[in-house]
């Protein structure tokens, strides 16, 4: 195990986070704060409670999830896309470091950053709305698991992308709609029956539902299924990454 190698990649990526602190951390925090002001305070005060939870508190888990998804994907995809773009990936490829170790370095750093952002948003939200966390251990578990899973997904996108446009297109065109339609701002039980069935094909539904359960003990789908679906998605990402490194797809001629 090349522990020094993992540490080198991890610290290199974290250094990038600190260097771009405004863009990395301040901007997601600011945009989430705006959501809380608009949806939580302004609109939320005119909304009925959902499952016994005030609307402002109801959207907290969803908003954190939304940031985790987009941040995990963009951090991890950018992290591996840049060395490909500048050509410095030659050094990673020529180093005595395995695929697993490389992924731990890049994905570990991206997930760390997401967890930091998620935590900051959680604290920020507390300034706007009053909420409690029913299952803190599960809350942390979902936070970490989601960050890792979507950082893996971002890593795949970073390998796949061969232009900056492609790098942006998946988060923008696929993940954002799925996140918005995944029950971040509402319970899917509020949807007509047909659309409730459709929503079950959206993986984000399970993440938001499970995460919300860890806060308030209420969920759209069973928490076991939420956890299972997250793990399934994680395994799917790992399988794709294993395939990427076995074939050298887009990184090795």
């Amino acid at each position, binding site marked *: 195990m090349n522990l020094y*190698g993992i540490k*080198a990649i991890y610290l290199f990526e974290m250094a990038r986070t600190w260097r771009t602190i405004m863009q990395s951390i301040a901007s997601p925090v600011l945009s989430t704060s705006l959501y809380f002001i608009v949806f939580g305070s302004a609109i939320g005060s005119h909304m009925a409670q959902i499952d016994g939870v005030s609307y402002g508190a109801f959207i907290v888990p969803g908003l954190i999830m939304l940031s985790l998804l987009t941040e995990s994907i963009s951090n991890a995809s950018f992290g591996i896309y840049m060395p490909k773009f500048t050509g410095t990936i030659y050094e990673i490829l020529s180093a005595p470091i395995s695929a697993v170790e490389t992924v731990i370095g890049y994905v570990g750093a991206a997930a760390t950053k997401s967890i930091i952002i998620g935590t900051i948003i959680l604290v920020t939200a507390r300034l706007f709305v009053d909420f409690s966390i029913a299952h803190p251990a599960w809350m942390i578990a979902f936070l970490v698991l989601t960050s890792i899973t979507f950082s893996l997904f971002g890593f795949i996108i970073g390998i796949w992308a061969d232009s900056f446009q492609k790098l942006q297109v998946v988060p923008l065109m696929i993940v954002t709609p799925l996140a918005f339609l995944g029950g971040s701002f509402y319970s899917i039980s509020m949807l007509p029956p047909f659309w409730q069935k459709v929503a079950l094909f959206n993986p984000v539904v399970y993440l938001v539902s499970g995460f919300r359960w860890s806060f308030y003990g209420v969920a759209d789908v069973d928490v076991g299924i939420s956890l299972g679906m997250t793990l399934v998605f994680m395994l799917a990402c790992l399988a794709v990454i294993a395939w990427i490194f076995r074939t050298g797809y887009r990184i090795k001629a």
Partner: protein
Amino acid sequence: MKPLDSPQIPRPSGASDPIIAVTGLTKTYASGFQALKKVDLEIRKGEIFALLGPNGAGKTTLISIICGIVNPSTGTVTADGHDIARDYRAARTKIGLVPQELTTDAFESVWATVRFSRGLFGKPPNPAYLEKILKDLSLWEKRDSKIMTLSGGMKRRVMIAKALSHEPTILFLDEPTAGVDVELRRDMWNMVRALRENGVTIILTTHYIEEAEEMADRIGVINKGEIVLVEDKHALMQKLGRKQLTLHLQNPLAALPAGLQSENLLLSADGMELVYTFDTQSRDTGIAGLLRRLNDHGIDFKDLQTSESSLEEIFVSLVRGRS
């Protein structure tokens, strides 16, 4: 290993151990382009090996495969006895690579980037060693500068520092002096020699024949994906080198006398010089006979000089001859 003056001198023991052994290596890219056709090559421990070849000959592909950046289609490579695929950790730990393109990070400091490289190659931190490398490469003053603020020559040196950061015993330099000014080129040559004295095996590719001529112990020529020849530099120059003897005459000659007519002997246009071309390898160079015959014809000369063909001429004739 000191450069050998003659192939007859026995090699020092251990000098012929291959530190890199390439066997039956081929590479066909997805586009169908066959970059390497069954390459066999052995690099000896401690030597400076120059790989010469025109653009697109397969130099960079060969190096990229050995370093793990490109997958081979068929064939095997071992580095210091370790198979580069099966035992890649051990093999790659030994190897440092300075690629042709100036590919560096932009926002990192020089110090951060060499520390990163060392860690990536699995070595524990050693600030004293990295300090020495940066000082040797005249980069110590710039250690806190962002790489993007450095000049091209300095970036090149940063890449060398990165390649040396994990104390490799085999160093690949892919066109190290392309686009580098004369002074820096001299510095780099000196650095390469110093590394070799410390036991590092160096493989360099170059377009500059003078560089190979100046630096290399052995020379390999690659053309269209095939190794055309591998030879001790001196032996190569002796074997393929043709020498010319130029005689500056006392009095101009209108034409060569009948008894001196030969395809090897030419008279210059002004009739003041005779140029005789001969093969250094042949037993009888014919110089003695020529001088005798000149004497018989009463032709006096005031000066004479010999010149050897350069590696460049050898190289051009080789590549042309096989294409």
